[in-house]
């Protein structure tokens, strides 16, 4: 196996790609949703109207690829480790919202996100065990 192949099948690399793709997927979905936003149309609540936007389709692709990477990491890493690390997406998504989408995120929202992250770190181990059993 070449060095590049060995680097690619490393589960931590896969996890990083999974997290990055997940963040990118959320951003794309948001951009696509905003482009097809139509508050007057009652059907827009179902989100199906979002399928008109190419951004949404790229977002769907990114989510699917992220899922494949997630499965690849779970082959080598136990869920009790992979799941807490994957929660870094809760930091990456608001950060990229601020940088890419230019959303104004007040201190109160950051505090709430920090609390969610702390709570997720606390429940990560038992929740991952539960998810494996479920």
């Amino acid at each position, binding site marked *: 196996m070449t060095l590049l192949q060995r680097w690619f099948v490393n589960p931590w690399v896969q996890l990083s790609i999974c997290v990055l793709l997940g963040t990118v997927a959320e951003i794309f979905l948001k951009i696509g*949703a905003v482009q097809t936003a139509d508050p007057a149309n009652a059907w827009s609540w179902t989100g199906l109207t979002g399928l008109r936007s190419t951004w949404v389709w790229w977002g769907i692709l990114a989510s699917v690829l992220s899922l494949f990477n997630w499965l690849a990491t779970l082959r080598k890493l136990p869920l009790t480790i992979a799941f807490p690390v994957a929660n870094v997406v*809760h930091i990456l998504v608001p950060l990229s919202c601020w940088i890419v989408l230019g959303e104004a995120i007040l201190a109160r929202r950051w505090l709430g996100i920090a609390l969610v992250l702390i709570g997720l770190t606390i429940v990560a181990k038992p929740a991952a065990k*539960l998810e494996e059993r479920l």
Partner: protein
Amino acid sequence: MDITARESYSRVHAIVVFAAAIAAFAVNFFVNIGLLQRFDLSYFFPFQGLSVILIALAGAWVLKEKLTLRLTIGSIIISLGVILVSLS
């Protein structure tokens, strides 16, 4: 006869559960997009942390796992965080 009856029941059961899971996922995905049309992503995304609490409750109900102190404290902290985000 009895064994085949049990086998076919569990296969139908598995297919139904699997289809229901896929349907639920599809509904979640599209309502997601619908909600994103109206709210900021940074407002909306932290609510996904609530799904972990639901997993814990489902484990307690389906698997009869006990809700440890760690789980309840963590769930309360997550809920507080979500409430804070929803107020911002």
